[in-house]
């Protein structure tokens, strides 16, 4: 079943999957750079904060943020993998499968993992702000939480849909 929208989303997901791994490489590279060129980083940090904050503290913060970025790659990869599988089944004209219910569950867990990472980020940013490090503002993501619930609900809808489809497949 050809559908321009589905084809477009499938292409976008493919690009985002590559982007996700590129982001992982970037984060690993950044983490390694903070270790290999720690001196240069510390000089830059001391210059920026005029010695008000210890450079080692800021460097520790940067490394932690890089590791959090790396940790986010796995759930995002699982999420895109599941979305890609669902899109494949839609293109094949057979989306109501038990496999898609499992994929939606995987999406729900991936989104939940990202939400938990977001909470950890909130704590880290709070700590960094208290330490005097210039950081971005953090706001809780209510839509993210709703996304988690929606994915789990949709998984159950697909379980029922797959059962109905099986019933229909055996109807003459």
């Amino acid at each position, binding site marked *: 079943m050809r559908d321009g929208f589905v084809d477009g989303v499938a292409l976008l997901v493919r690009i985002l999957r590559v982007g996700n791994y590129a982001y992982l490489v970037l984060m690993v590279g950044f983490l390694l750079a903070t270790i290999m060129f720690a001196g240069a980083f510390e000089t830059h940090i001391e210059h920026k904060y005029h010695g008000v904050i210890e450079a080692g503290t800021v460097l520790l913060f940067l490394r932690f943020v890089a590791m959090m970025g790396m940790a986010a790659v796995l759930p995002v990869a699982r999420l895109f993998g599941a979305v890609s599988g669902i899109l494949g089944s839609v293109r094949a004209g057979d989306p109501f499968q038990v496999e898609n219910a499992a994929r939606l569950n995987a999406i729900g867990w991936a989104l939940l993992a990202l939400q938990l990472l977001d909470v950890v980020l909130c704590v880290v940013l709070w700590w960094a702000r208290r330490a005097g490090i210039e950081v971005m503002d953090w706001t809780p993501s209510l839509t993210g939480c709703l996304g988690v619930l929606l994915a789990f609900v949709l998984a159950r809808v697909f379980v029922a849909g797959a059962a109905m489809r099986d*019933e229909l*497949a*055996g*109807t*003459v």
Partner: protein
Amino acid sequence: MPVRVALDDMLHDRRMTLTELSERVDITLANLSILKTGKAKAIRFSTLEAICRVLDCQPGDLLSVTFEGDET
């Protein structure tokens, strides 16, 4: 499944092949084969009506239920 479909017997009595029935009731051979071999989970009223019209029979002639322990 306790529901038995006597399609094979009825076709035999009428000297009709499954392919011929398939063409006359406008149902795919694959679907009729599923029905004939007892693998179908359900049958639509429209299918039943079409088969009964072509075979000139009643649903009861086509379907029967046998429960465990019943003597046939």
